[in-house]
């Protein structure tokens, strides 16, 4: 018996492929972006989801991804035009009040730290940038990290600490920490056999899920110095180990994965047009966890699914977007036990 996914809204308006969707922290609105160089803000009016605002003229090329500040006041957009724009509604309407420049070419991802005081970007130039948020809409580059050897696809902050994770075309995932005033890579997670497209922390921040062009999903766990399991840790930073590989479920590249902080469910978006939900077994051993596929939505979109995002408050609502130009909202109903 598996759970059920039903489509609850089909949001049309983008004029090209939609690359990314992001819920505001309170879940009241959803932002989407794509090849048409616009950002659309979707919200509920009565029972219906509608496009509230279209943000244009911020970028000259494709907008690849979005990130909300934890307070929900700011929205950052990463673009192939090599810049990151910061939008806010201080004037009552969304306006771009800061543009972060520095990357040599396409910016692929942007993400805010939990405190809202740091911002990370990454891109095709193989670098990861960390920006400090100053007063008066000023952003200062705190560090440029060249640890990856290829195109960096995504950056994601730890849910509670100032630890950053990134994944890359070089098939690895890397973790960064600030050490004596400078940021450096403290661990490299190897195992995927092709591009790692996306990563997501679980609610505790002790585990990461990753997805790849190698059609697998991997679960990684951190082992702090002095761990009871006896995992060897050199130095003072935790050692991350792959503890589970989910293979054989996806037919093509997996472009996104999101680990719900509310329900603990993992959702994937892939090039086979499907969305899938995985649930950890109740008695799962954390050092050797097992996950079950609890729902598959075939033909969720008519083309590749690019991004998937759990609602931050309502544990059964999901948003997806696709090359087919649409954004969709889904309700997940778990199977009865």
């Amino acid at each position, binding site marked *: 018996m598996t759970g059920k996914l039903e489509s609850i809204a089909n949001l049309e308006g983008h004029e090209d492929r939609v690359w990314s969707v992001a819920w505001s922290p309170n879940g009241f609105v959803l932002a989407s972006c794509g090849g048409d160089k616009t950002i659309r803000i979707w919200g509920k009016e009565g029972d219906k989801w509608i496009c509230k605002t279209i943000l244009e003229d911020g970028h000259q*090329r494709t907008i690849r991804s979005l990130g909300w500040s934890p307070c929900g006041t700011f929205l950052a957009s990463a673009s*192939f035009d090599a810049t990151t724009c910061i939008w806010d509604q201080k004037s009552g309407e969304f306006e771009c009040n800061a543009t972060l420049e520095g990357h040599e070419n396409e910016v692929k991802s942007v993400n805010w730290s939990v405190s809202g005081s740091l911002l990370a970007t990454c891109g095709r130039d193989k670098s990861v940038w960390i920006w400090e948020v100053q007063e008066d809409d000023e952003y200062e580059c705190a560090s440029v990290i060249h640890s990856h050897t290829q*195109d960096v696809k995504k950056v994601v902050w730890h849910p509670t600490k100032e630890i950053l994770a990134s994944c890359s*075309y070089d098939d690895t995932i890397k973790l960064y920490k600030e050490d004596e005033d400078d940021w450096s890579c403290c661990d490299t997670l190897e195992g995927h056999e*092709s*591009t790692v497209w996306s990563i997501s922390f679980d609610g505790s921040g002790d585990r990461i899920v990753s997805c790849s*062009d190698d059609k697998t999903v991997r679960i990684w766990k951190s082992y702090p110095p002095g761990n009871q399991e006896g995992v060897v840790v050199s130095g003072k930073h935790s050692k991350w180990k792959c503890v589970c590989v989910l293979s054989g479920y996806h037919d093509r590249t997996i472009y996104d994965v999101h680990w719900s902080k509310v329900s603990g469910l993992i959702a994937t978006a892939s*090039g086979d047009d499907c969305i899938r939900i995985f649930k950890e077994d109740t008695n799962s051993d954390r050092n050797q966890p097992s996950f079950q596929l609890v729902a598959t939505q075939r033909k969720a979109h008519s083309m590749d699914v690019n991004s998937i995002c759990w609602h931050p408050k309502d544990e059964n609502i999901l948003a997806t977007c696709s090359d087919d130009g649409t954004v969709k909202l889904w309700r997940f109903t778990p199977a009865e036990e």
Partner: protein
Amino acid sequence: MAAVTDRLENVNPTVFQRLKERVVLAEEEDDNIVDKIDDREIFDMIRSINDPEHPLTLEELNVVEQALIDVSDDESYVKVQFTPTIPHCSMATLIGLAIRVRLLRSLPDRFKVDVKITPGTHQSEIAVNKQLADKERVAAALENNHLLDVIDQCLVSKK
């Protein structure tokens, strides 16, 4: 993506005989019969693509062959293997990109397309295949007007 150089890498490529034009069969004219997309149809989409450096088509250089096309209309899937004229051809990525763009423009959206180098025929086969399969990098490349011009030149049918 590789830049176009002035110097020919492969000065004397072997030129292959072109296939005859496809004969249109009576049942293909019949609108009541659903025509599934087959390997010959895919081949016809890509055979006349121009080589980036020779005044010859990919068919004449044997870079594309009907036998190296896999297609399943029912599964909306197409796989094209192409064979660079020489194992160190720096144009391999560009040729693959031209094939990909032609198929993107010609096929219905439902199709999944894989464009790969014929195994064992290029020294950077894995790297080129990985780049051609990365739709994000392909999308970024196609926003580069200079590159798009070069690809469009390859896609102009001379006839």
